[in-house]
Every structure is written in C-alpha cells, then in structure tokens.
C-alpha cells in the first residue's frame, strides 16, 4: 500500500509537470459552402440519433443557428452545411421540419456527390431515406411553411415523395392518395400513429 501511495504522489507531480501550453484558437468564420460530407455514423441526422453533436466535421455542433440561417444554407445549395445545420437543430428541438430538411440535405449530398469517398454515396442515400421515413414515423402531422410563413405544407407527403425519388420503399401503412384539387397527399391506410 505504501508503494501505491508513493506512486500516486509521484504521478500527481509528474502529470502536473507535463502540462502542454498550446494557446487556444481565436474563432473566425468557417467556409461552409465548400464542405464535403464524410460519413461518421450511418444514423446521423435520423431522429433520435444525436451523434451529429459529436461529429468534429459539424461546424454547428456548438452553436445555435437561426431558422433564417438554416434556410439560407439550404437555399445556397450548401447541402453539407445545410445537413449539419438541420441535423443539429433536430437534436436540440426535435421537429418534423428539421428532420425533413436534414433528409432532404442528405439527398442533395447524394445527388451532388458531395462526399469525400464515393463509396459512401449509397450510405448517404439510405440515410436520406431513413430520415424521410423518420418524418413519417415520428412527425406524421408536421408541416413546413412557405417563405411567407403562412401557407403550410404537410411534410409527410414530401417525405413520402422523397423516399420514392431516392428509390426507397415507404415503411408502414402509408399510401399516397389524390386530393380533390388534383394534388397528392400521403396518408395512413389505417390511421393512427405517433405524434
């Protein structure tokens, strides 16, 4: 036991002397338009996964983004930045809107091949499908609004269409029906589901 005590005292002393002194880095802007995506976790951006917060490539993991910034990134076609922005927001405030735009951004990454390794493209496609399916599973009644903030659109329908567009298969009892005005809407065959 005495040896253990001595070793502990010595360890304290040695470790105290071994401290490095690199200065911290002053923060400046990050180029988010040029980001490319590297798959860190195949469930990233799919509720309730929160691994995006520990992804070092995520420039937003430590900051809150306004909704305007998130839409601005989406509008700029900065698909990787937009994904990180929406996926980060999804962990902080789980909504169908954040889930949908995270999935949509993944689809954008897939379509533009904005990945470090093309071998990851298939994974990204599947992630996008899983994100859209998550909208149907977890946020079936969520809506998003147009730029005026007044006209709602059901995200379930958009998610359904996104899955189809990516060549995926919608899980669950969702069906696409024609609305009286000629549009299409995803509804559940037997009704019910999570909110």
């Amino acid at each position, binding site marked *: 036991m005495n040896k253990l*005590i001595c070793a502990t005292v010595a*360890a304290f002393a040695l470790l105290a002397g071994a401290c490095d002194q690199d200065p911290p880095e002053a923060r400046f802007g990050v180029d988010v338009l040029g980001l490319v995506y590297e798959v860190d976790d195949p469930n990233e951006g799919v509720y309730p996964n929160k691994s995006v917060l520990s992804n070092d490539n995520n420039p937003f993991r430590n900051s809150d983004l306004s909704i305007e*910034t998130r839409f601005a990134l989406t509008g700029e076609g900065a698909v990787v930045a937009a994904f990180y922005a929406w996926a980060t927001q999804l962990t902080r405030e789980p909504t169908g809107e954040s889930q949908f735009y995270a999935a949509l951004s993944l689809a954008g990454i897939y379509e533009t091949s904005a990945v470090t390794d093309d071998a990851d493209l298939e994974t990204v496609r599947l992630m996008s499908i899983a994100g859209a399916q998550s909208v149907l599973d977890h946020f079936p009644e969520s809506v998003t609004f147009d730029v005026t903030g007044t006209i709602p659109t059901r995200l379930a329908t958009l998610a359904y269409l996104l899955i189809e567009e990516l060549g995926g298969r919608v899980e669950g009892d969702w069906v696409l029906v024609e609305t009286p005005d000629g549009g299409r809407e995803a509804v559940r065959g037997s009704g019910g589901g999570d909110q």
Partner: protein
Amino acid sequence: MRGSIPRSVAVIATLVFACACAPIKTATVASTVPGTGKASAATRGPNKVQVYKDVRGFKLKVDGKDFMVFGMNWGYLPIGENYNYSLWTKSDSFIKQVLDKEMKLLTAMGGNAIRQYVGIPARWIQYIYEKHGVYTILNHPLGRYGMTVDGVWQSPTNYASRRTRQVIRSEIVKLVEGYKNTPGLLMWLLGNENNYGLSWKSAETENLPKEQANRARAKHLYSLFGEAIDEIKARDKNHPVAIANGDLGYIDLIVQYCKNMDIMGSNVYRGYSSRDLFDVVKKKLDVPFLYTEFGADAYDAKRGREDGEAQAEYLRTLWQEIYEHSHGKGRAGNAIGGLTFQWADGWWKYRQEVNLDVHDTNASWANDAYPHDFVKGENNMNEEWFGICAKGRPDEDGFYELYPRTGYFVLKRGYQLDPYAQTTTLATIRAHWGAIKTEELGPSPAVKRLAAQLRETSRVKVDNVRMDFRTFTTGGDGLTENSREKSRFDHLESFYIDLSSRPTKNVTAKLSLNVLGNVPVNPIDAIYYEKRGATVTEGEEDPFADIDRLAIYGASVTWDETWFQLRGFFRKGHYHWGYEGDFFNLYPEANYGGNIDLYNANVPIGFEIDFKRRLEGLKLAFGPELYWGANPQIIGKYERKLPGEVELALVHQEEIAQRAAGAISTVIPTPRSRRTSLYLAKELGRLKVEVGALWAGTPLIGEDYERSESSGDAPGYLNSGYFVFDDEIRLQDTFGSKVKLTYSNGPINWYAQGAYKGLVAVGGSDQTLTFTGWRLKESGQGNQYNALTGLTFTRNNFQVAPNFLYQKPLVGPLPSIEGYFDRPSGLYFPGTTPRNVLDDPFVVRGNQEQLGYELLLAYDPTPATFMWQFDNIKREDARLAASVDFVYRNYRQGQDANIGVFANGGLFAFPAAPPAEDLWEVNVRVISNPVRNLRILAEGFAGRGQARGDDTRVINRYGVAFRSSYLRWLVSGHLKIDDWGPFDYHRDFNFTFPVQAMADLSYGAVAPDWFYGRYTQLGVQGRFRTLDKYSDRFDPTSTGNGAEYQILSYLNISLY
C-alpha cells in the same frame, strides 16, 4: 465501558447543581441486616459513611454498620432513545413509577446501591433511599466526554487548561454543597476511565512520543483528580471519595497525586478473575477497592446468540473474588464491593445516534479474557448486551418491562451470604458461591427449546406495519384546469410493511414494501410518493397502473465478516466521507429525507464495504447510483496514519457509464469522469493543516469547448463585445488543489482555506461542518479558484461568527451570440450559447464569480446538544437556543445554463441564465423547551433570490414556519409570501405564489417523534395559496388572483 455515559452529562450537571430541590416525604425503610446490603434508612440528614481499617483489611461502614456495596450501574433509558434521554426531566409521577418498579426489582435481588451521574436531583436520591433503602454513588465525570467551558463545548477536555480545571473544581464545589446533606448519598465518585481519553492537543505535548505525551497529559488529569478530592474532603466529612479509573492505569500517578483518595475505584474487564488487582491496590495505594464497573455481556459473539448463562458465570466468579478479598478473609482484605455493569441492556450504545430501536449485535472491541466467545482477530464485546436484565419496548407512556437474566438470579442467591458475618470465612464463601449453578438458575430446558424455536421462526420477521389513511378535500379559483376549481374529495391509502431477516449470525437484511390502496387525483401539490399508482390522466384508467401499486420502499443489508463489513442500501441513506479524508467530497452524503419519496427516486442504490484487520482504513463503494444523480461507479478510499501523526487519505472514483436521465434539475448526471484525490493532514497543537490534490475529469481531455473574453473597446466577434476562442480540455485542466487551516482555541476558532480547480477538476460540495453552521461554503465545482475564511467568537453562550468567500471561475460563462452566415463569402460565423452540463465538459454555475459575506449569530446555553447536529430539532435540550444567519452574495458575473426536466423525465438545457445580481438571505431559527413536555421550533426567512432556469425576474421572499409539541399534541404551520412553490421546478421556472399557508394539528398515540415523524397519529391539515401571473396553474384570463385550498385529514398507524 467506553462511551457508556452521555457527553451531555456535564451540561445537565450544570443545570441541576443550581436546584437541589426540596425533599419528598416518604415512608422510611427501617429494616437493617448488617453487611448483606439491606440498607438502613433511619437518618433524615446525611448518612455517615466511613472507611474502616484494621489489620484484617478495609470495610465500609454506613452509620456505623458494615456495608458491602452490592451495587449496580443503573439507568432508565427506553429503547429508541440515546444519551440525550433523561429520566429526571419527566414528571414526578412518571419518575416515581419507574423508581418504584425498578428499585423493587433491584432490592429483591439484594442490591443496595446504584451509581448515578450528576443530573439526578437530590430529592430523588433521597426518595430512592427512603422508599427503597438504596444508596446512590454520585458520579461527576470530570469532563470525560467533553464539557462546556465559558459557553464553549470542549471535547476532548483539556485538563492542562487552567480555566478548564477551575471550571471543573467549581462544578465539584457546587455539587458537594448541593448534595452533601442528602440522605442516601453513599459516596462521591469522580470520572469514568478518563485515562482512556487522554487525547487533547497542546503545545506542551505535541512533540512527545505517544506514550510520553499520554503520560504528560495523565499528570494533568490525576493532579486534577487530587485537587477535586481535596475540594470535596474540605467540605464534606460524611462521605468518602473514590475515582473511577480505567483498570489500574497510571496507578503510580494516582499514588502521587491522589493522596487523599478514600477508595480506589476501577472499571475492570478481566474476565473470570481480576487476578492480582486487589493485591496491587493494597500494595501501591493501601486503600479499599471498589469495582465501579465490571461484568460481562450476555451475547455470544462466536455463536451469534444471547447467552445469559455465560454472563452469569463471569459474575459469579468475580463476586466470589470480591467476597474472598473482603475484610478479614485472609486475602487482600480491601474489597468493599462492586457496581455490576449493568442493570439493563443499552440499545443505543453501538453508533449511539442511529438504529436506536435495534438491538445491535455488533461486537465493538476484542477481549481475550472472555474466552467463551473470543476468536483471535475478532471482536467479542457486545456493548448493547451488558444488562443483567433484558429490556422490553416502551409503551405509549414510556414505561418498559425488564426481564432478568440468569445473572440476576445468580447475584440474588450469592448476596444472601453476609460477607461480614463472623461465620463467613474463605471456606464458606467458596462453598456458597461454588454451589450456585448458573445452568440451574438459567432458563429451563423447555424455555431454551422455545427460544431456539423462536430463533428459527424469527429468521424473517415483521418489524413494523404502517398504515396511512388520508382524505383530500380541494378546490380553487382562477386555475388553468377548470376541474380543479370545483370542490372535490378523494382519498389515499398507503401501507408499509417492514421485514427483516437474519439468515446467519452476521448477516442482517431489511426490506420495506409499500402497497397502495386508492390514490387521489386532487392533491394541490401534485407530486407525491403514491402518485406512481395514480391513473395516468384524470378520469382515464391506465391498465398498467396496478403494477406500481406494490413497490420496494427501501432495503438494506449488513454483512459483518472478520475482515470486512458490507452495507447494501436501496433508498436508505448513507453518510459522506468528508470527515475521513475525502477532502474533495467525491463521495457525498445520501440522506435525502422525504425528497426521494416526493420524486419517487430509487436512490441511493449500491453498497459500501469497510475493510478490517490488515486492510483497516480501506473502504469501497459500488453501485448504479450511489447518490442521487451519480453515474454508475466504484469509489475507494484508503486512510491511514503516517509516521509523525500525519493523516493520509487516497480516494479514487471510477465512473463506469453515464446516466442518461434525472428526476429533478438539481441532480443532473455530470459527464462520465474519473477522479483521484490525495489528502494529508497534520495537527500542530491547536492548528490543523490540511492539504489535498485532485486529479479529475481525464476522460474529458481533448473535448472541445468555447471560451470568450471581453474585447474591451473593440467590436469583438460578430460585434458581440467578446473575442471567442475554440479550445479543448487539456491535462492541466484536470488538476485541482486545496489547503485548509483550522485553528481551535476554545472561545476563538478560525479557519482559512483556498482552492484551485482546473476546468474539469470537479469535486463535490463541502458537506462538512467547520466550527459552526455557516452556509457559505465551497461549491466543489471545477473551473474556479476560491478562498474562504471565518472566525467564531463565543462568550457566555453567545457566538458571533463572520465568514467570507471569494470565488472566480478560470473560464467565465459563455454569452449568447447569434451565428451569422455571410452569403457573399460563404463563411459561417458560429454563434455561442451558454454552456450546459449535458453538452459541455464544464459550466459556470455554482462557481460563478462572487464575493460572499456571512454573519452568523447564535445563542446556545447547551452546546453539548450541538445546534447544527442533523437531528438537533429532536435533541436540543436548551430552554432557548437561537441563531440568525445573514448571507449576502455579490455576484460579479453571470452563469451558464441550467438543465430542466420535462414531465416525462427528459432533460433539456435552458437557453440562458439570469444575469448577475446581488442576492441575500436571512434565516432565523429558534428552538425552545420552555416547560416540561412543551417544545417549540420557530424559523423565519427573508431574501432576494433568482430562478435556476432562465427567467430574469428577481424575487423578494419572506416566510415563517413553526412546530410545537405538548405531550402528544403536535401543531405546525407556515406562512410564505412571494416564495417559490414546494417543488424544484417551481424555482427552475420561477413559479411563485403571493401567499402560501399551512396549518397542521395532530394527536398521537405516543409523544411526537420530531425527527423521524412516523408514529400513530390522527390529524388535520389545511393548505391555502393564492395564485397570480407568476404562479403555476394560474389561468391568466381570470380576473384578479386565483386561489387553491386543500383540507387533509390523516390517520397514520404504526404498530411499533
């Protein structure tokens, strides 16, 4: 016996000296049987007690007649009470009933004397003598367990202090003047093995080796004994003076300093025979000898069961030896009797303040002179089992039955021989005592068989059954839920069954179950233990709710082995290690009172192991949640004394995983960590120096964090006024250190401490108490440096205690800066938000920059019942004790964000924290025992406070609370103005109520238990509160303020 008298004896004595009350008229006992212990009670003044000496030895003569002390260490202390209980504070009728019953039993055995510590009023000494013919040996402890000097509690007593000696001598003088003419007083007895408590420090002794230091201290002790003896003898010629030494320790100093001592008294535990004891006393002191304690316990530690016959055999041989060494038998001739230890079992003795209603079988010391249950390396002396009578549980009035063991009957038969009869010789003594067969006087074979069967059937037994029946009548106005506004009635039934099991002699397990009947939906305080069994939504049945109708309320297990003791706990509290080397409080206390019921938290859960023998000093604790909010972990501590009386402790805590959820915002799990601390302490006379090093949070090395610094006049990052830096946790952020100096000098005590804690060098909050009940303490968090200092000055029972704190985080809180995306450049400028413990490696919360001032004023005439003791509301025995504590906190910097808890238990971070404000609080506490059976506690508070969440409103809150009991009645209540509601979330979200009032009245089947509060009682309680826009459940569309009320009636039944 070690620890066998209360430390408050000295204080009680101080109170009693002043009131040696008027005598009580009683019939006198006239019969006299010389020498056999049947006392004469013919005198109305003091008895003339003399030590008689001739060539054949010594005898005691009382009023001219030979007298052998067939004495008893007697006391009356019901199960469930401890050293604070005093029979003499009860009503006269109660005392008389007790004395009549017990003295009758004692005299039936042949007993003729009892030993009593100061505190017994003179009139009761007289009553015991005149009614029962029993003499009293009055014992002043001479500060054995500490004493009050000038209003300051001193423990251990410093016999080298001139003032202390003066106070003791003055007490002795008062005692003698007050009691010397009391009929029935047999002799004065000083101390109680004080030579075993020679541990005070002084500059004079600190540099001496331990033995020499003790001897130096012993000189002070025995010279004081000598002075006390002289004080007595100068004032009282009628009674001899004895001391109660620990065996024959320091007998040469007794020879040197106690020249006028009449009788040598000793507590002796030498087994079947005291061997050369009488001869040594004769040779060295040449005075008569009296056992002031001797005997054996009635528990067989080896076999794990009661054994009254073994105890009786020790008593038989020891008493035979007394007879043989008495006057004129041809041996030492100096034995004048003994005070058998003891009359009845002391259920309080093991741990003294907990498990008072449990007859602990823990053997606390080893003595190979008791071979029947001695096993090398194991303890065999069971402190709680020394009675020659077993003790029954008290009834509702506090009376209990005694059940004499074999030892009682052995003494009864033995005492029938007159030691001083002409015909009593060595041969007749040996024949008489030798003819007493303990096995014949013990329980009959049938009773033994029954006892064995009982042991078998009571392997699992029901300790208690409790039943709570409550009705709730509620209503209100201006509430968000319309249904709550109507007058509604509902009821609650909740049942508790406490089981215990003893599968082997060294394993004890306890289990408490709770079963629910109906669970109400209308209580206005909607969080309560039984809520778990309520329907999920009002009016909507939950098909699974019945699962929660049966719950484990608590469980514990104790496993006592030769080399370890294991204590398992589930919803049962444990203490911290702060007083035993855990300098950084890594293992906090886990006694949560009613809070774990309120939030239905299944904590703490785990077990502790204390190692023994060669691993003495090593402790381990392991469990999924050792304390509320703890991550699953194992923690170990090793503590030992190094050469030079340096105390060393090493603590290591390894968290195994991170807990995901919390129940309330104050117990949010912190990031998984690993901590090691080292502690060294040394006492230098009155100064104690403690230093410690902490290494904590290494799993967080490499984690990113953000920090900000004021940009001064520059616009800063995103024009925020701050420069923002990205950094990561480094090795140096894991170190912490702390230094503490305490200086104790009776009325003046001072401490100073300082600490430096790296960013993630997180410890626990300081739960130790330094001198007094200061609230301003180190938070224990990492990321700070701090300094504290405080002083207590006590005089004439008043204490003034200023205290100061300064602390500052190494890295300040993070401001809210909104991120910005610059379209033309494609650059994103990340914003910042206040840190929180869920997402960041460290935060600024309790460690925010502050300058704290505190002034504590206290008045406590009975410092032995320490005002800041956890159960002081039950123990305080002062007529009036009070304290006022004012704390002012000058916060100089804001905080990071706190964590909130959703109704479903999910956690979230508040987006911000309230800004820095100056906050203050005053707390007043008064506790009073103005007349017998009346107890009053009054508390008040006022203050300026802030929410824990993000609301910026500062509130000014006030309130008073009281509780009072008289006999079996208990009344309590409170009135709070603009205060937070009762639950954590009220403060998190800054929910306040303009008025909160409560009044409660109950009547118990027994006197109220102030601390534990579980007894049979019938009561009614009213609650009322008004609601405004800041209140929970207030409907903002209603006009004016809202209101809620609740009338609760309750019947609680407790079978024990």
